[in-house]
C-alpha cells in the first residue's frame, strides 16, 4: 500500500517502452516476440497498480487473462517463426519483405 499509483504506473510505462525498443531494434524475430511479451507485462503491471488503486479484483483478473493470452500468442508466434526458419534458415525480419 506504500507505493503510490503514479510510481508503479511509471514503472509499467518504462517496461512498455523497453518492450517497444526491443521489438523495433533487435533484428531477430524471436526478440521481437519477446519485446511484445515485455510490453504485455508492462500492461499487466499497470493493471496490478490500478487494481490496487481502486481496491478491485477486476485488474487482477485482467492479469490472469493476459498471462494466458500471452502464452497463446507465443505459441502461435513461435509456430510461425519455426516454420519460416525451416523454410529459409533465417530469423532476420529483413529477409521477409519481398511483396510489392
Amino acid at each position, binding site marked *: 500500500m506504500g507505493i503510490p499509483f503514479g510510481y508503479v504506473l511509471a514503472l509499467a510505462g518504462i517496461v512498455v517502452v523497453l518492450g517497444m525498443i526491443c521489438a523495433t531494434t533487435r533484428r531477430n524475430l524471436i526478440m521481437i516476440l519477446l519485446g511484445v511479451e515485455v510490453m504485455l507485462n508492462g500492461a499487466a503491471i499497470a493493471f496490478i497498480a490500478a487494481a490496487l488503486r481502486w481496491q478491485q479484483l477486476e485488474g487482477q483478473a485482467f492479469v490472469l487473462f493476459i498471462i494466458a493470452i500471452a502464452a497463446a500468442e507465443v505459441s502461435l508466434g513461435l509456430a510461425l517463426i519455426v516454420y519460416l526458419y525451416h523454410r529459409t534458415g533465417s530469423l532476420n525480419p529483413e529477409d521477409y519483405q519481398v511483396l*510489392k
Partner: protein
Amino acid sequence: MIAVGSTDTTLLAAIAATKLPFVAFAVILLLTRRRPRLSAGLSLTAIAVSLASAGFLLVKHWGIARPIEYAALWLAGGDVSVRVGILIDPLSLIMLAVVAAICLLVQVYSLGYMAGDPGFSRYYAFMSLFAWAMTNLTLAPTLLQLYIFWELVGLASYLLIGFWYEKFSASEAGKKAFVMTRCGDVAFFLGLLLILVHLGNLDIRELNGAAAGRLSPTVVTAGALLIFGGIIGKSAQFPLLTWLPDAMEGPTPVSALLHSATMVAAGVYLFARLFPFFSLSPTALGVCLAVGTVSMLIASTMAMVSRDIKQVWAYSTISQLGLMIMGLAAGNYVAGVFHLTTHAAFKALLFLCSGVFIHAFHSNDMVVIGRQGGRRLRVPMACLVIAAAALSGIPPFSGYFSKERILGALADLPNPLWVAAGLLGAFLTTYYTFRLIFIILFPAPGGEDTAQSHGSEHGHHGGYAVMAWPLVILAAVSVALGFGEKAVAQFLLNPFGSVTPAAAHHAWLPYAALGLSAAAMLLAWFEFGRRGAGQIGFVERVAPLHALFGERWYIDRAYRWLLDQVVYRLFSRLCARNDQKIIDGAVDGLGRVIAAGGGRMSILHTGMVQYRLIVVFVSIALMAIYFFI
C-alpha cells in the same frame, strides 16, 4: 399587327414586298435545289411581286407627310421587347423601290450570266435571301430590326462572295468581308446598346424625334459615332474599306447588286435613316464628314491604278459612298439620298456591263478586254459609256444632278476645304472612269485576234439577250433619273415640313465641277485615248505613288500584319499555349503529382516489419503528445 394609320392594302403590299423573297429562299433551298429553272422562276416571281408592291406603295403614298408604321411584338422580355414591323415613309419607299428594282434587274441578268453554273439554284436562293433581308432592312421601324437584317445582308454577302467556294480567293474574300463588316457591326451593336440603355427603346421615329433630346450630348455623340462604326464597316469606308475590292471575287451580278447598288449603300441608308439623330451631334457629323472625305479620296486614288475592271468600280463605289456620306454629314439630307438613288442605277449598270465583258472575254483585265475587242459588244459598250458619264457627273446624266447637290452642300460649309476635296474627288473620278473607257474603247495596238472565238463561246451560252435588257433599262433610268430631282427632293422632305433651299446660290460651282471633269477627261484622253498614247497614267510614272495606290495605301498589309502577328501569333498562340501549358498543365501536373505521391506512398509500405512498427510507435507518441499541446 397593330395598324397605326392606314388601310390594309398598304400593309398587304408591304408584306408582299418584304416576305415573299424569304418564301422563295426557303422553298428553293429545301425543295427545288435540283431544278435550277424552277428555282430561278420562283426567285424572279418573288422579286417581281416585291417590285410591283414597292411601285404600288410608292404611287399610293407619293407625297405622304406622316410616316405609317405597323408593328408586332416579336419578343417580350424584362426590359427589352423586340418589335418587328414596317415603317413607311419617303426614305424607305424610295429605298425599297431602288432595292426591288435593282434586285429584279440583276436577277434577270443573272439568268444569262449564271446559266449552266452547277450552283444555279443555290445562287437564286441566296439572291432571294438577300432580297428578303434588304427589303426588311429598308422598312425596319426599329434599329434592332434594322440591325438584324443588317447582319443578314452581311450573311447573304458572305455567301454570295464565296459563291464559287472552290476558288480560294473567293472564299477568303467572303470571310474577309464578313469579318471586317463584323468589326463595324460590333460598334453598331454597342451603339445600339448604349441608346437602348439610355433611351429605353430603339424606335427609329422616337430616336429621330423629340425623345433623343432627352439624351445627354455625350451619349448622343457616342451613340452616333458607334453607329457610324457600323456604317463604316458596311459601306466600306476608311479604315474598313479593303474588303470591298476583294468582294469582287463573287459573280459580277452579285457585285452589281450587293457591292455597289444596294447592300453597301445600306450604310448610307442607315445614316439617312438616323439623319435627325446624327444632326444632334456636330462632333459626330464632323467625324463622319472627315471619314467620308478620306474614303472618297483614297479610294479614288486606288481606282486610278487598278487594271481590274471590277476593282475600279469597287473603288469607285467606296468613293461614291464616301461622297454620299459627305453630303449627308454636310447637312444635306436630300443630296445624300438622291445620290444614293442615282448611284444605285448607274453603278449597277457599270457592273452589269462589265459583267458582259468578263463573261465574253473571261478576263477582268481592262487591257485584255480592250485588246480582244471589247468595243465590238455595242450595247454594253454604249451603256458603259452612259453610266461612266453619269458617274463622272456629266450633264444631263443623273449623276450630274445628285453630285451637284452634294457639292453645293459642301460649299455651304464654312470651311472651303471640304468643297475643294469634293471637287478633287470629282476630278479623280472622271479621270479613272475615262481611263477605263478609253482603254477598252481604244486599245493599244496588239492583236484583236482572239475576239472571234470568245464571241462564239459567248453565243454558246445564249444569255446575251437576257443580259442586255436590264442594261438598257438601267441606262434609261440613269439618263432619266436626274430630271426627277426636284420631285424626289420634295417627296423626301415632306415629313420634315419645310423645304430647304437648294444649293443654287453657288453659281460658280457647276462650272468649276464641269471644268474639272472636262480637264480630267482630257487628261485621260491624252494618256489613254488618243492614237499612239502610251496608256500609262501619270500616277504610274511616279513609282512610289503607284506602289502606294496599288497597294491600297498599305491598309490591307496593316490588317494582315495585325491579324497574323498580333491576333494569331500573339494573342491566339499565347492563349492556346497558356491553355495547354499553364491551365491544363496545372491540372495534369496535379494529377501527376498525385500519382507520383501514390508511388512513393506505396513504396513506404514495403518496408521491413520493424520500420513499420517504428511508424506505429512514433504515431502513437505524437498522438499522446498532442494532448499536451
